[in-house]
């Protein structure tokens, strides 16, 4: 494992929410300026939103231990790209504490070695690999525009939270495949840990004017499923700001309006046997 590490001076403690993201999501490796600065990737604005949260946390309490600590992962990167990544991060003023470059096979090991508490990626397969290895992991959403939002939006699936281990297998009756069920179970496994951490962070801010917004979207279930999810999250110490219940309506138009950064996926996409063909 070839790991190059560069540390910058930030508050270090076990309470930090060590969050690993992929350099492919933050930068666009295919576009470069002459000086070698990389273009902004699909989830670039996520970093800025996280930095805004950290700033507000520090404003409330200088010694705040619970902040995001960002780690940038690069899988199978060439040497030239590595230095472009360092330079680009500096150029854009990104507060990234550590950079790890590893091979594709070693990325789970890298997560373990660095006690990563949250792994984010736009690649669903990577997210499920991490979940199955026991790491809280969620989708990093492609932002529609590069405009900086004033809130970091974290989205949870109400269907995932409300259903128990017992009822999951019966989802096959509704037409979900085995792979989807496996992904659903994987999503369920680490969600409580993550919800409690984010809940702790959310409590540092008031109801209004929070730089962190928690969103609940229930796609398949109707209002009672949403109520169960809201109560479950509340029991874990996580208070939801926005809640949407679709009862089977298409999710894309709502997600496009919500524009989340982090999405805790439930794996229930491309449902067969209903008239919702295509991306749901």
């Amino acid at each position, binding site marked *: 494992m070839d790991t190059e590490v560069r540390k910058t001076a930030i508050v270090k403690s076990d309470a930090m929410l060590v969050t690993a993201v992929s350099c492919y999501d933050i930068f666009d490796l295919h576009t470069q300026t002459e000086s070698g600065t990389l273009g902004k990737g699909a989830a670039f604005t996520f970093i800025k939103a996280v930095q805004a949260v950290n700033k507000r946390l520090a404003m409330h309490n200088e010694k705040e231990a619970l902040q995001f600590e960002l780690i940038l992962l690069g899988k199978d990167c060439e040497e030239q790209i590595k230095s472009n990544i360092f330079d680009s991060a500096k150029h854009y003023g990104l507060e990234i504490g550590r950079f790890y470059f590893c091979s594709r096979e070693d990325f789970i090991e890298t997560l373990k070695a660095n006690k990563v508490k949250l792994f984010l990626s736009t690649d669903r397969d990577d997210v499920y690999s991490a979940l199955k290895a026991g790491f809280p992991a969620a989708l990093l959403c492609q932002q529609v525009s590069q405009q900086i939002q004033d809130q970091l939006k974290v989205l949870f699936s109400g269907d995932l939270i409300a259903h128990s281990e017992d009822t999951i297998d019966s989802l096959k009756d509704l037409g979900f495949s085995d792979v989807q069920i496996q992904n659903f179970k994987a999503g369920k496994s680490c969600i409580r840990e993550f919800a409690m951490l984010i809940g702790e962070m959310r409590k540092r801010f008031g109801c209004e004017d929070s730089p962190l917004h928690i969103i609940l979207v229930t796609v398949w279930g109707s209002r009672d499923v949403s109520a169960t999810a809201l109560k479950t999250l509340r029991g874990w110490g996580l208070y*939801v*700001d926005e*809640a949407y219940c679709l009862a089977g309506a298409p999710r894309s138009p709502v997600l496009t*309006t919500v524009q989340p950064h982090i999405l805790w996926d439930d794996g229930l996409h491309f449902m067969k046997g209903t008239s919702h063909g295509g991306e749901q």
Partner: protein
Amino acid sequence: MNPSRQRSAGQGDPLSLEKMKAADPLSPARKPKSPKPENAITIAVSSRVLFNMDVEQQIFEQKGMEEYLKYQVDHETEPFAPGPAFPFIKALEAVNAQLRDLYPESEELFDVVLMTNNHAHAGIRLINSINHHKLFVERFCMTGGNSLIGYLKAYHTNLYLSADSSKVREAIDEGIAAATMFSPEKVTQVSETQLRVAFDGDAVLFSDESERIYKAQGLDKFFEHEQAHENKPLDHGPLKGFLEVLGKLQRKFYAKGHRIDCPIRTYLVTARSAASAGSRALKTLRAWGLETDEALFLAGAPKGPMLAKIKPHIFFDDQMFHIEGAAELGTVAAHVPYGIAQKQPPKRMKDSVEPNSTQKGPQLLIN
């Protein structure tokens, strides 16, 4: 197949199989499945028109957001009383039941969506209230302060009803039929089996072009103009589309022999007079392929008494003067803030809190 377990949802317990099967269209003891938004006639209602939240609104205005939300959570198990849109929503459900009987496969049904700026902390109380009143509201958007417009569009909203006139205006500007609802001063018994919707003509079904002439040049010029242009259809107003979808549903009932006893009845209640300007109104409707069951030309007389006779579930008008007159005599009236009449502020009705009037911080209105 897993055995079903009787656990009530909403206790923080995982969901029982029973509830999940309720969502499955093939399961026998099921709630009807919600129609797809593009097929349904979507009525978006805010929390304050669906339920009476006067007490809570006052707490919000006087003590701020945190106190308001704490109150909501503390009173979570106490359902709200019905709000001004409640009888209208119940009537929509009655029509749905009859449509399902006649057309079991069709998704052309009313779909009521709770569309509110409210923070999700108030969510459980709202859901409990919906359950208590056995309303068929399966979908909701609680945006925690963010704009509703994107969500109104995501649901293909056909009509948006709110207590907040600024949100209604925003929706109309975006081309969504919308109206601000006011509670009547006394309660009128309305039909539980027949949905009755009354519309003003100018600046509601039609554009405000003729009203502009009346305001600028007076009544005589208005009559002259209307008669000269009798055969030229007026331009459409913000609620034309809603009348259109009601008409579409009516024809489905007619097709199954329910002409006389159709569960939907529409009324045009206009200040135009039958003798002169009324003709252009009727011809415009006809040109659009639309009709109302009754057309009442009041020639400038107050609308309140006529509406009290009709007993509609909702009456749409662009002028607050008529809204007030209707509400005085017990009609649920909804203001359409469109057109030239809006230059004048409302006279007596207590409108909801406008942004920047009492709130210092972000414009987080409870809707």
